């Protein structure tokens, strides 16, 4: 059921919390924030959310087939 999945890329330090690239099954309408919480880390650690190459908020609802990239905040920079 690949069509139900989103492709997730974790950048930089977020890879401590999950694989660099993963294909995840989501519930329709699940938000980025909810997906991050399911992966088991604090959504505040995510600085920038990109969905299909466009910046979105963490409360953006996802659709099957979306390509999601999460960039970390840098722990002091």
């Amino acid at each position, binding site marked *: 059921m690949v069509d139900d999945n989103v492709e997730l*890329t974790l*950048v*930089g330090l977020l890879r401590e919390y999950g694989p*660099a690239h993963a294909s995840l099954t989501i519930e329709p309408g699940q938000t980025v924030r909810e997906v991050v919480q399911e992966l088991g880390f604090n959504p*505040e*650690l995510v*600085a*920038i959310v*990109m969905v299909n*190459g*466009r*910046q*979105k*908020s*963490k409360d953006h609802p996802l659709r099957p087939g979306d390509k999601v*990239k999460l*960039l970390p*905040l*840098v*722990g*002091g*920079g």
Partner: protein
Amino acid sequence: MLNGYGGQVLRVNLTRGTIEKSELDPDLAKDYLGGRGFAAKVLYSELEKGVDPLGEANKLVVAAGPISGLLIPGSGKTTFAAKSPATGGYADSNVGGLLSAEMKYAGYDLIIVEGMSPEPVYLFIDDDTVELRDARAYWGQGAITAETALKKELGEDFQIALIGPGAENLVKFGCICHDFGRQAGRAGVGTVMGSKKLKAIAVRGRKSIPVADIGEFRRVGREMYDFCKASDGWDVWVRLGTAGVNVPSNEWGSFPTRNFQTGHFEDMSKMTGEYMRERIVVTDKACFGCPCACGKYSYTKKWDVRVEGPEYETAAFLGTDVGVADIEDVAYANYLCDELGIDTISTGNVIAFATECFEKGIITTEDTDGLALSFGDSEAVFELIKKIAKREGVGDVLAEGARHAAQVFGGDSSDFAMQIKGLEISGYESRDAPAMMLAYMTADIGAHHNRAWAITYDIEVGRDAVTPDKAAKVIELQHIRPLFDCLGGCRLQWVELGLPLDSYVPAMKAITGLDRSWEDLIHVAERVWNLTRAFWVREQPGFGREWDYPPARWYTDPVPTGPSKGKVVSKENVDKLLDMYYEQRGWDQNGIPTREKLDELDLDFVTV
């Protein structure tokens, strides 16, 4: 021949009209590296104690670093420095672009401008030919207009740094502008240039820079570029630039809103980096040698102007901090500031301050030349920008900065004049971020974020914590980030793309031939930090802890709205942060470097 350097120092005296060249001292290069390091050493050693920042005795320093002009990612920064007319203390401010590369190709690492010209002039540098030329025709012109005209007169291959009317009129936050919309914007380095009647510096260089091991340099440089281009963050950073931070900062509750009354703006739909990209960005713009063009060049149809930006800081201060929520209005205000040559951060900050004073009844239309002020009124913002640059009416008061304006306006306004040491606070509301607040309190030009961007550390380790590790992180960042300013480099490849810091070690070895460790380079950054602190101690009688306090709003008023609602850092915790910071720095409890610390850093010529 000093590997990695142009090799010469240019000393220009505008009073006498003289130009001297000398060889760069290898010990200066070893002990201070370049850029901000050169600037701090020159200003501390050469300025007489207590000089008037706008008088003949102040000096303007322009400095490149050892990586400037070489193919290392982000090697396009130039430092400008002087005793600040805004704060009365140490100031340096840097600008990205192409200037320092051109300086070094002409053979100069350091330009020291002394004295004061009777008539407007510009400094013309074409390799070995250096002249002071008549600039009366350019005086009064906007920065973008005059840069265009100078390029027409001299040729496209000249790089130009110049001032606009704001700095000519001695607005205390006048910028030095470069490359059509970039600025060394903070603490009035442009104002010093204006006081000297130096309209511009135009440079062309056609020599090369000696490098110790060219093969190794190319290998290391290539590795650094490859890393940046392969970074997963690269496409995001190029797409959005610093405006990509608008959304997360607002989500953190740190986006300055209505004169820092809060840190969260309600409707960001026309303020996001994504909206800006789709609506107004025309193309990307990079500095010298940069693989990740974070500059955005925009056109707003609404106002029919082209502008570089708006950057994150400008979106905060000509946007939400003055209550404006449309990036196109921000872009027009940005254009006005760029052409008039005044700092968008300080300009927006003082306008926000005046607006809060007006809404609270501390000032009225009698004080504002009949202009009614309210948050969100972009037309009033445009009007005030022009008044400030011309020093007209209330603009003349605001042109002196928030600290001074609070003294004039009276009431309790100094409690919410959002400045530290006389410099307007930049774009992070910090009542829910104690490390970031400490970074602002202790930044060595006044409240600026670029010495330590510690807010992300607050979020990572727990925002309420007031613990020694936060002071340690601020100190660590206050060495790493200013080290980039010594090298002539940009830190964004490290911060945003994760370029490893230790990649600069083999790069520096290949360039200079000197085998220096990362710790050794950081030691230089610590030396410079203590030297700039000593500059403040020397120049400001009674300098100490009181100078590091934030405005009362930050330790008395809990944040009223947004994700940080109810948060404030108590005065007790403000002092606790300073106690921990001073102790870890090896300073006394009044924040003065000890003799022992100064000796450890080979600062034996410094007296405190």
